[in-house]
């Protein structure tokens, strides 16, 4: 028989929503986010803090949720990948990740994206060294990182221009288009 673990109340502001659940006292934040807070976008890659797939922001600071006891984050504001977009308006880095090849298989993308969003929040115009230092804790096996860095550069330009990202629900191509003219 397994010893019954202590259960404790836990609450946090996950992507702006109050989450209040009971968790086991030794629960890992990653498990709580995935299994109790509905953030399946936060990925489990290695369980020992080496790959960065599970990165989330705790009060705006990138943390590895697989190495964080859930109780440490109790009462904090937590941002996961699901919290980056504003409704159907993507965060610029989400848009450029798709358009510049920052994401291939996409499994590491949630970790990269939250880390980069924190970087851009703090420093909207990072240079290459600053970009590299920010994502040094994240492994990507597909892209070789180069197109990830490209994505950050372009996202930084979008931020600087002040243009938002369009709503993804707007009408797409018309199969019976008007060519203008008269």
């Amino acid at each position: 028989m397994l010893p019954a673990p202590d259960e404790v109340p836990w609450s946090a502001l996950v992507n702006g929503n109050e989450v209040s659940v009971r968790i086991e006292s030794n629960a890992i934040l990653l498990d709580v986010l995935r299994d109790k807070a509905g953030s399946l976008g936060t990925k489990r890659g290695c369980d020992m803090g080496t790959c960065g797939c599970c990165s989330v922001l705790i009060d705006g600071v990138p943390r590895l949720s697989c190495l964080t006891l859930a109780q440490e984050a109790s009462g904090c504001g937590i941002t996961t990948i699901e919290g980056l977009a504003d409704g159907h308006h993507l965060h610029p880095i989400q848009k450029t990740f798709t358009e510049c090849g920052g994401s291939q298989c996409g499994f590491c993308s949630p970790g990269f994206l939250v880390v980069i969003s924190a970087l851009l929040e703090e420093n909207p115009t990072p240079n290459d060294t600053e970009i590299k230092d920010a994502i040094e804790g994240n492994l990507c096996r597909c892209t070789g990182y180069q197109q990830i860095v490209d994505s950050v550069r372009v996202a930084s330009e979008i931020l600087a221009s002040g243009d938002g990202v369009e709503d993804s629900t707007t009408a797409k191509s018309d199969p019976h288009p008007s060519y203008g003219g008269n």
Partner: protein
Amino acid sequence: MSEDKDRVEGYRQQSGKLPFSRPGSGGSRKMSEPRDEDKIANIRGNGGHKHDDVVTGSAVGRPTALIDGRWKVTGQAQYGDDVRLPGELVGRIVRSKHHYARVLSIDVSAATELPGVVAVATGQDASGRFGVLPVTKDEHAMAQEKVRHVGDLIACVAATDEATAREAVRLVEVEYEELEAVHDMRQGLENSEEPIHDRGKYHIGASNVQKRVFQEFGDIEGMSANAVVSHNSNWLFAGANHGFTEPHAVVANWDPSGRLTLYTPQQVPHYVHRALADVLDIPMHQINVHRTFVGGGFGGKSDPFPHEMCAAILSRKTGRPVRINFDREEVFWVNRGRHPSRIGMNLHADSKGRLCGIETDALIDGGAFASFGHVTTYYNGVLHTAPYEIGAFHYTGARVWTNKPASGAMRGHGAVNSRCAVEVGMDDLAEQLNVDPITLRLANLLPPHSATITGFRVTSIGMRECLERVRQASGWDDKFRKLPDGHGIGIGCGFFISGSGLPIHWEPNKFPHATVHLKIDMDGGVTVHTGAAEIGQGSDTVIAQSVAEVLGLPLDMIRIRSRETDTSPVDLGSYSSRVTFMNANAAISAAMEIRQELLEAAAAATDAPIERLVIGDRRIYRKDDPAVGVSYLEALHKAQEDKGALVSSGAYRTPPMGRVHKGAGAGIAPAYSFSAYVAEVKVDIETGQTKVLKVWAAHDCGKALNPLSVKGQIIGSCHMGLGQVLSEEMKYGRNGHLINPDLLDYKIPTIHEMPEIVPIIVESNDSEGPFGAKEAGEGPLLPILPAVCNAVYDAVGIRTSELPITPDRVHRMIEARCKHEGVTPLDLSSPELHHSELQEVLEARASEHASRDAMRATDPDPSDYNNGALFGFDPEIPADEQDERWVVSVTPSSDYMESPRLAGSAWKHTERRHGGDS
């Protein structure tokens, strides 16, 4: 038609009344006039291609974001472990703690009694054999009699939560009888009292040799006799793991109707489909394999896996969905990564700087199961019979079972290690001949549309352009042998299959390799059904682009359904770099059928003759009078009269190819990719640390359908290859135990280890590829390893023959060189080059061949060219039919067996059925 050009025919759109004006019209004359059709050029690529007539300019060739990208960047993409079904149970696997043991008994009673445990299963619940290749099925869902490596499956449990499942695994008591394990691959060649598998009458002696290959082609006798210089090396390559970020995960669910749905991140859903039917003993139609998003594959998710069987078995027992999710450690136990290999490589060059022989001896460590190993054993040899024209090819290969996690297919399958050895050998030959290594390569290339020494039909070849482009981009001529000590530059080339010519399961049936279905209903959107597995490489996107291109539609009107075997036509999946070539070809065929229907409808609507109609962006119009036309939707609705949705099916099957000797099928492909990389490195002479500074990477992918993805594949391949050459290694300790099954000690390069990569796309416009395309997923990995090794030689004058070149290894080699030369590291000088007379000979030949190749590349009907012409034979006839000294042999002679090389010694055993003892 043309006799009366003034007469306006057909349904003519009136401005203001109908939705179209002539595209680009303006000014006072709103109406167009018919034009002289002869003056309107067809859209043509370089050299012309069979798909030129269906090019509409809509989608192909543009850098295109992956169509499923937004799912991934918002966290909404569901990977294996993200599939959560109501009432799910959590499965865990009981794994062997011994390398090799007989399982005497399994006591599951304590586990079964643990509250929360719903079911426990063992090998008794599924005794069916499976394996990815039909000829070597040697796996079971769980141990039948023996366990063959640490981590091999013994039993599995399903419980209400993960903690209970883990506890239940601990409570399963297994009684073992330990057997003597084989760890060293060389030991696998010897007879054993208890071979790891028993293949019955096909067993080779009493050894652990799983597969052996012997091949001799060309002038074997003359190989050494004609040589003026030779390169000899003995390589040791460590095993490498794919290192995909998503650990394996699977969910199995038997629904109330009795059908099984298996949710799994698979590269090859079809093989799992087959294997499940075998193991569960139910027909295939009762199973739906649902491919989830795949968090990286690289070959590591292309076998049917025992844990997939386990989930299905547990779900069958419990009547509930069962999810099994791996720890990172378990990923290393299931492995299927690159084979640890010992490769002997001898190259010979004659006085004219021709490559008069390649001798390769490759012993590869297969671990505990066959997996793709049958093929790997061939690929280690046959995939270096190009791009160079050679005088002889002697290959001995053997794959042995050892008590390690199984090796299998990994990006660049079977070609990576031996290619590294060949390219480092080429560098050494150039050094000995005192010529430039790029010139040596340029003077020895096979031309387009030629046959290799083993009879592979090679169509387009962009090798020469790759070499020339990297030479120029890297500033090679100013850097090679001229950089300061500790800095170096090196070249490496690659050659890889673009799809496997023979399907694994099909013969003697003539099923296609790939099938694509299209459906267009009244909304105008196109639904594409394909079984090609999107694993992040962009297969969904490239298929959508191909369909969009033919139909003249924007990409957002195409939707791909590629997830489920229930709705997708059978497809061989994402391996051997086949998807773009085969599936895009099938998609183009399917789209061309629909295109024809749309053209017919447009012809009926406009009264224009069908051969005058062309498709542009969402519009079908007269080529000679663009104002006469209908919109895509108008044509579609016309075509759907009395019929409803348009549906079509397109398929691709390879043409007949290759020669007839045993093993001739291994390595044949409908096309081959080529690549050449230059790497610039800095080696710290005191610490042995190698830093790669910059890589110029030219890859011939035929035609870049999605240049963004091609570049991504090139850069990603460099990353994976740099890992293998610099730091990645599956380390086995003194007792044979894998000591680094985690991403902390298995060192994948981070961003700080990555140099700047300059991807250079070379387009050779393959005659059979979709719009001219070939592969770009695996070939780009090959050249980076030798390019780095050769650059290290240029930097510090040490020739490595062991990978990875970790600082300790490089340091040891530097020390050895210092000791040998009696100097301190700081006094070491790097190699120099003073051209010999041969350099000019080679330059002249390269320049002559360049014109030959340019002619052949665009010749619509090039004459036959067989390997051997460089040695004076008639190119139109295979050299072995012209000269009896040129042999074709696939069994060793008794002479050879008197002193066989390492892998060649596998032939000292007799197959049991030939030994008279079966």
